[in-house]
């Protein structure tokens, strides 16, 4: 590991990324271009998030990585190992103990604090891309606040599905100014975007960083007659009994039996450790 600088990237690169992060924090929701570096992993693995984490981590930090809410997927394990090796930082699976959390597709259920930083891996940062592929034009739309097109997308959703069917990467208006793609988190997580922690978003292939500072106003776009709803499966967690956590559906057998479990595995584990039991849970499941 001595052949790497702390957290893999050289100091000059980290300074460049930090400048982009600071600019992002100063202009909440604005996509700041940055010179994305090659990382020793494929783009699909969240190289944008990894670069933001690399520029954010200090030796005193405790690092956690979640992928769809789980700490133990190949992707999460690899990124955690990467920083264990290159930065020698402490790692954890417990949300409360982490100071920097890199995430793909979820916001943890536990309320984050002002002492924490949440780093999102972003595949496509441009929320207007769906209807306007021209980058010059979308940039202009952002700078002039021409966001009618965003509602055209929601209009199309309702006209095709009878409801706003967008359930991931649901667009938000940040601090009454920039429309932002919150990355492919479920819309259930959207209300949590107004939080105490710092939120940083990194898109590697697209070379963009954006940010939401603590306590920033974040509003999910909608229509008066089709208001935004933070929906989830209408069940409780079958393991820990949680009523208000985002659930994954798990097929149990060929007979079609299934169960619902918290997608946030640390949240489920800590609830079970505290004695909560769901429909299929057992006391010693934890």
């Amino acid at each position: 590991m001595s052949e790497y600088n702390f957290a893999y990237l050289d100091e000059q690169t980290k300074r460049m990324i930090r400048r982009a992060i600071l600019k992002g924090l100063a202009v909440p929701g604005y996509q700041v271009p940055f010179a994305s570096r090659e990382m020793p992993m494929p783009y699909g693995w969240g190289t944008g998030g990894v670069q933001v984490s690399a520029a954010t981590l200090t030796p005193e930090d405790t690092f956690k990585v979640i992928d769809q809410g789980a700490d133990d997927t190949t992707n999460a394990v690899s990124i955690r190992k990467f920083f264990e090796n290159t930065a020698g930082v402490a790692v954890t699976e417990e949300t409360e103990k982490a100071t920097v959390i890199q995430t793909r597709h979820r916001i943890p259920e536990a309320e984050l604090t002002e002492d924490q930083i949440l780093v999102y891996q972003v595949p496509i940062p441009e929320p207007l891309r769906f209807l306007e592929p021209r980058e010059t034009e979308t940039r202009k739309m952002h700078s002039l606040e021409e966001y009618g097109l965003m509602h055209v997308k929601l209009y199309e959703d309702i006209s095709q599905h009878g409801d706003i069917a967008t359930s991931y990467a649901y667009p938000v208006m940040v601090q009454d100014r920039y429309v932002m793609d919150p990355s492919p988190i479920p819309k259930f997580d959207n209300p949590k975007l107004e939080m105490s922690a710092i939120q940083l978003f990194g898109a590697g292939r697209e070379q963009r960083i954006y940010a939401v500072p603590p306590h920033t106003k974040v509003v999910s776009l909608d229509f008066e007659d089709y208001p935004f709803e933070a929906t989830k499966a209408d069940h409780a967690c079958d393991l820990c009994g949680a009523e208000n956590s985002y659930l994954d559906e798990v097929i149990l057998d060929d007979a079609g039996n299934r169960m619902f479990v918290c997608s946030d595995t640390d949240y489920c584990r800590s609830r079970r450790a505290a004695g909560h039991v769901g429909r299929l849970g057992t006391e010693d499941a934890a």
Partner: protein
Amino acid sequence: MTPLLQVKGIEKHYGARIGCKDVSFDLYPGEVMGIVGESGSGKSTLLNCLAGHLDSDAGQVIFDTRADGPVDTLQMSEPERRMLGRTDWAFVHQHARDGLRMSVSAGGNIGERLMAVGDRHYGDIRDKAIDWLGRVEIAESRVDDRPTAFSGGMQQRLQIARNLVTGPRLVFMDEPTGGLDVSVQARLLDLLRGLVREMGLSAIIVTHDLAVVRLLADRLMVMKDGHVVEAGLTDQVLDDPQHAYTQLLVSSVLQV
């Protein structure tokens, strides 16, 4: 009465070549101005300069704005001009696909301008979209279809609906019937004439087809090599052309 639009000395070059030069005219509210001339005479260049899609080399395009009265739109900031472009102005392109979002339903296409100016009630937007489909003679049942599934004539009618839904005060049209079959052209012309009368539209229509201006335009400008060679009331110009070029045009020697 204050003209809705005062055009003064508009000029545009493409390198050494003249796009259009010394073009001046006034357009009054409710008036339709036709611009005719053979292919390459500078009609589209002029229209795009007026609409702010092309930067003019010289001249003024003074529009009587709702808020501040007459303002030179060429001196407006880009945000102001773009705002004008989706509120009081509308632009109908010759090729519908340049003026439509082909991956968005007919209803979404019509609704876009409404949403752009802040409409946030889905039911209202949809009702207005359906109403406008009817006004351009497209069945309500097509509201969720994409324009890719429409014929050329329907696409053009949809483009017109999408532009007129916010009640613009000035409409620019570039060869709105170009590229359509003759029978389809006739239907579109009838429709346009109806809308122009009913809404009291002010419009500038570019065409190489004299039948179009005969039906729609109150006044006419004839262009040749980037210059206006003759202007006047439509019937007067067409029935008693003064300039030799206009005489050729009317005698259909130059008809494309």
